[in-house]
């Protein structure tokens, strides 16, 4: 028996969910909607007495102050111009409210409900055509990847499937090369011929065919996503073969710098650096691009959920303390009719992604404090979603021990068919039909399951109940157990893995990427205590196998061996192929554009540009203060709405020691030269650290490369150049890389077969340890009559700049980084700030000096008088170029009036000059080289321009 209960806001109360449909439809050009009613629907499976139904409705589901309900009926029925549509999750998709409802019904003392499912119903009043209704359903109300419209008579609950067992061999031994590739394609293995042949040869030696799960495990372990085979492979570039470019650049710089405070780098799930005598911090940034393209909410949701498990799976487990997020989307003002087929509108992608990060991060109780959003048409089919997490870990817990004979325990969520083939599919390109392939791979997370997991794992860690831990990410148990037990070997009984529902094959169990699961290795004498601890907080923990000593991975299902692979072949058998890389500078015509006359107007327009404008709409939706360590918030200034350069967080509430996080990203430069993009990104991330009072000491970097298909030599050439810049630049700055990740194949194939690659995109994240957070400085102007200084050299580097684009010019003169000079400058400024001479500091990035001045002024609520004639510059003699050049390594600094001599003394010999002062009159006035006023704008108007664009 199925009970259906619906509830809704009382008709006289404002319902934001209903309102969202009205405004969303208006965005689609549909203006005939008069009113929307929104209903939460709950289905319960089981025999229930009428009194119990009423109790569930009244005491659990309905808020009697604001809502009405109906049991087995409708609160309103569509009539006349009203149209009713009900939407629910597809079968097998996580429905966390339903799971909670089951528990809560039992709390009421009502037994007999076997299953629950939620849906939502909309009743829409207004004249609409069928086409408009379809548009509203598809573009606004649901995502067909994991939801559908409930049809009359549809069976809401899954019928119980039987567990199936049939051992499947894949005939490989006699296969021709063509057949090998067909197998790879048909099984979505994403393995190339060399790899398939290596597997064939291996099994020929074993004189047997591989089973399906063996093949899947190899495909997963060898996937680009898990092995990073491109950057760790052989690359022919400029006539020489580079053996493992990653090792030769990113790893190399860290090795050469050899910082004693780098405690664990490039070997665990996150890089670890020293925090204080007792604690270390670790940091990891991941991408979740393809799932987010298909299902923005679920993709971002599981993206942040996944990266939180990285620090949690580092050493013996770190407590997650900060989240970061950086997104690249297509233009949000794009017309719907211009979208390529198979692409979600960028605004919908952005809203979904932000909601996904928000709902997961906030529920996990982790502050999301640092991020960026970047827009470009080339991200239309392939948005980028970078999620990062910082963890705090006791220094004596940063190593794992793996020994034979320990129990393999899976802790947390259950395993379902969700996320099958995520690791392999994310290693391929997206195309207009990708929704089909991905329907199994996109999931929705359940943050509360993960929160319970964190709470209990950290207790188990502190009680010494396990010896090793890792996360189930891409590749699921296959990757987690395969990696962690590499040195010993392991055997696993797959039928023991707790399942969400029946009917999974052993192969699906092994490679499922269901969320919220961790694997720990528990010594036999601690097993009972560990299982009791997890049970005491309702966290599922199940022994699924043991570590062995035979260096094989052996999989059984119901007692029968279904797979057995040598760890050595699994991890070392991947054939290394030589990939070709070339790089040729793009043909860019040098064109000066039409210099603007009204630079005030230009300033307004650049401030309003999506890549510069306020991201407050995003930031406020994240809890950036939970855990109570917030020192410098993402939004600063007199009205808490100015753009902070970096966030500062105190992870230990009894200490003034803090962590600074920042990032650098500028794909526009990547289109001109990936080398200078990479150098610029590093410079930007570091100057953000400096701008808030940090220093280059104790600062470490993370790299995240998102590139197109690197099987194409031109794409790979750019990547190699960027990696070289990482080495060169970080080496001089003395800032080691501690972790990183690359995501290749970020291309979208349109219906017509055209392949659009994302711009070469490198995100640099920086983490720094600050001894005394009360020395922090924010970017908002503080006091009238304080002098303003420019620190750093302005050059004629307009390539990729906002201004040049605005005036219709183009140039290959992308900003360079003189890292040697920049390092001296950063160190001197950092010392001057530590000495307390600085009242405010802001780096010059997109939009150059003009934007930096405007932001400082309106954030602080004071005006400024500035004279460009004093500006330290090289080869620039035009006001517009001085104002909007995006040269690197520059800061605008407000110095305390009484300390200006001391400040100048400390910057002696370095490019810096007094360029003006803070004023009381609420206007930004800039005098040009000719002595006339070229900008005079009220700061309130500048702020308005900056805030309007994304005020949703």
């Amino acid at each position, binding site marked *: 028996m199925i009970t259906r209960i619906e509830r809704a806001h009382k008709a006289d109360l404002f319902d934001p969910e209903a309102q969202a449909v009205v405004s969303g439809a208006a965005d689609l050009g549909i203006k005939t909607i008069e009113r929307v009613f929104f209903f939460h629907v709950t289905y319960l499976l089981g025999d229930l007495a009428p009194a119990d139904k009423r109790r569930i409705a009244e005491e*659990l589901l309905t808020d009697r102050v604001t809502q009405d309900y109906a049991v087995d009926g409708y609160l309103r029925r569509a009539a006349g111009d009203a149209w009713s549509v009900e939407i629910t999750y597809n079968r097998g998709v996580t429905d966390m409210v339903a799971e909670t409802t089951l528990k809560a019904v039992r709390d009421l003392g009502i037994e007999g409900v076997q299953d629950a499912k939620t849906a939502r119903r909309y009743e829409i009043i207004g004249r609409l055509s069928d086409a408009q209704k379809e548009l509203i359903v598809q573009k606004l109300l649901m995502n067909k990847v994991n939801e559908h419209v409930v049809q009359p008579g549809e069976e809401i609950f899954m019928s119980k499937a039987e567990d199936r067992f049939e051992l499947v061999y894949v005939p490989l031994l006699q296969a021709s090369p063509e057949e090998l590739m067909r197998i790879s394609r048909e099984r979505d293995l994403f393995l190339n011929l060399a790899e398939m042949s290596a597997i064939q040869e291996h099994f020929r030696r074993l004189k047997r065919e591989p089973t399906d799960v063996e093949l899947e495990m190899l495909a997963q372990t060898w996937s680009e996503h898990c092995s990073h085979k491109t950057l760790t492979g052989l690359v022919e570039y400029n006539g020489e073969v580079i053996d493992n470019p990653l090792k030769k650049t990113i790893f190399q710089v860290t090795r050469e710098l050899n910082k004693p405070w780098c405690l664990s780098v490039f070997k665990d799930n996150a890089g670890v650096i020293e925090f204080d005598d007792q604690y270390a911090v670790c940091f990891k940034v991941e991408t979740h691009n393809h799932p987010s393209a298909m299902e923005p909410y679920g993709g971002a949701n599981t993206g942040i959920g996944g990266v939180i498990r990285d620090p949690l799976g580092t050493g013996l487990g770190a407590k997650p303390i900060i989240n970061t997020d950086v997104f690249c989307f297509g233009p949000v003002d794009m017309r719907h009719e211009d979208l390529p087929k198979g692409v979600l509108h960028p605004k919908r992608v952005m809203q979904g992604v932000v909601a996904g990060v928000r709902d997961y991060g906030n529920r996990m109780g982790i502050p999301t404090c640092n991020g960026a959003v970047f827009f470009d048409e080339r991200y239309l089919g392939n948005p980028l979603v970078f999620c990062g997490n910082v963890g705090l870990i006791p220094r004596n817990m940063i190593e794992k021990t793996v020994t034979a004979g320990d129990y393999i325990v899976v802790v947390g969520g259950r395993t379902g068919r969700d996320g099958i083939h995520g690791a392999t599919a994310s290693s391929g390109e997206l195309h207009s039909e990708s929704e089909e392939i991905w329907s199994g791979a996109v999931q929705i997370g359940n943050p509360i399951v993960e*929160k319970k997991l964190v709470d209990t794992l950290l207790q188990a860690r502190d009680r010494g109940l396990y010896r090793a831990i890792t996360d189930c990410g891409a590749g699921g148990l296959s990757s987690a157990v395969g990696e962690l037990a590499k040195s010993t070997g392991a055997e696993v009984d797959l039928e023991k893995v707790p399942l969400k529902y029946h009917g999974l094959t052993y192969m699906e169990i092994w490679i499922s990427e269901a969320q919220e699961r961790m694997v720990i290795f528990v010594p036999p004498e601690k097993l009972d205590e560990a299982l009791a601890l997890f049970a005491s907080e309702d966290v599922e923990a199940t022994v699924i196998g043991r570590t062995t000593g035979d260096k094989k991975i052996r999989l059984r299902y119901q007692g029968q061996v279904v797979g057995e692979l040598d760890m050595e072949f699994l991890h070392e058998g991947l054939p290394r192929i030589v990939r070709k890389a070339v790089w040729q500078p793009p043909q860019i015509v040098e064109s000066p554009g039409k210099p603007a006359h009204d630079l005030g107007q230009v300033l307004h327009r650049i401030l309003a540009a999506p890549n510069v404008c306020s991201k407050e709409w995003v930031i406020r*939706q994240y809890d950036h203060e939970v855990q109570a360590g917030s020192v410098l918030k993402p939004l600063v200034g007199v009205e808490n709405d100015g753009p902070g350069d970096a966030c500062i967080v105190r992870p230990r509430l009894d200490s003034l020691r803090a962590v600074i996080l920042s990032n650098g990203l500028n794909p526009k430069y990547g289109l001109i030269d990936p080398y200078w993009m990479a150098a610029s990104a590093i410079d930007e991330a570091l100057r953000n650290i400096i701008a808030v009072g940090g220093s280059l000491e104790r600062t470490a970097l993370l790299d995240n490369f998102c590139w197109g298909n690197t099987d194409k030599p031109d794409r790979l050439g750019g990547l190699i150049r960027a990696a070289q810049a990482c080495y060169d630049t970080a080496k001089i700055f003395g800032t080691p890389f501690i972790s990183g990740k690359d995501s290749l194949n970020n291309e979208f194939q349109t219906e017509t077969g055209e392949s659009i690659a994302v711009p070469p995109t490198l995100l640099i994240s920086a983490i720094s340890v600050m001894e005394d957070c009360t020395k922090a400085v924010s970017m908002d102007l503080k006091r009238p009559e304080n002098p303003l200084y420019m620190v750093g050299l302005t050059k004629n580097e307009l390539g990729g700049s906002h201004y040049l684009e605005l005036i219709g010019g183009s140039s290959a003169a992308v900003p360079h980084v003189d890292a040697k000079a920049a390092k001296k400058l950063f160190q001197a400024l950092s010392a001057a700030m530590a000495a307390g001479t600085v009242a405010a500091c802001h780096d010059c990035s997109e939009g150059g000096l003009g934007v930096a001045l405007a932001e400082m002024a309106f954030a602080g609520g004071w005006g400024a008088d500035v004279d460009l004639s004093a500006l330290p510059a090289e080869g620039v003699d035009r006001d517009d170029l001085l104002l909007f050049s995006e040269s690197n390594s520059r800061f605008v600094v407000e110095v305390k009036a009484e300390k200006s001599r001391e400040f100048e003394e400390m910057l002696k010999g370095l490019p810096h000059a007094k360029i003006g002062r803070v004023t009381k009159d609420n206007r930004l006035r800039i005098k040009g080289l000719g002595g006339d006023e070229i900008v005079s704008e009220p700061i309130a108007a500048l702020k308005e321009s900056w805030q309007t664009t994304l005020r949703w």
Partner: protein
Amino acid sequence: MAKVRVLVLRAAGSNCDQETKFAFDAVGGQADLVHINRLLEGTVSLRDYQILAVPGGFTYGDDISAGKVLANQLRLKLADQLQDFYTAGKLIIGICNGFQVLVKAGLLPRLDLSAGQEVTLTYNDSGKFEDRWVYLHVNQTSCVFTQGMPQIVRLPVAHAEGKLVVRNETVLQELKQKMQIVLQYVDKDGNPAGYPMNPNGSIEGIAGICDESGRIFGLMPHPERHFHPTHHPQWTRLGLAKEGDGVAVFRNAVNYFKA
């Protein structure tokens, strides 16, 4: 003298528990983080504590509605203990999700666990979760937690369901008559104001209420997040204060038992 003991209640999805414990400990209390299962199975008893704090978070994911599932657990399974705790003259505070729990369990605006809810906290008018700092007017009431606080304080809010709605006009009149409205969102000069000063559309800008005795207190803003001077959003402009505005809430509670 023995320290005042504080039970900071945890459940699946609680997440401000550690900073709430830190706040109570810092003002001289002794706080324990206790999982709801320990109270339900009886291995820990409310009897051994003087203060019950229900911290912020998303208990049970706020699935169905914010705080509802934990509220039902308190109402249905711990009613006697809660009644005794209150009768013994002890203190209860609910912050953010904790406030939602207290209201839905029937601990506010008065202790009545019979499921006849009079007040609720529902979706913000903005339709979304928001983290922002607000100005609060501290009314003269019997609320133990806010005694001696300045008339206007600053605290952050961070919630999606913080709009206070009353069942009917009588409930609102009663809250006023009995001086149960403790905190109201205002502008920086202390005047009633609309969004974003009132971040959620609460009726009369209500941000926190107490029961008639002043011993049960619920509020949406987070006093534990304005504890250290560096929490203040403008400390880099104004300099470091001696302590954050929220400290008094915890100190008042602990000192209540020392008098």
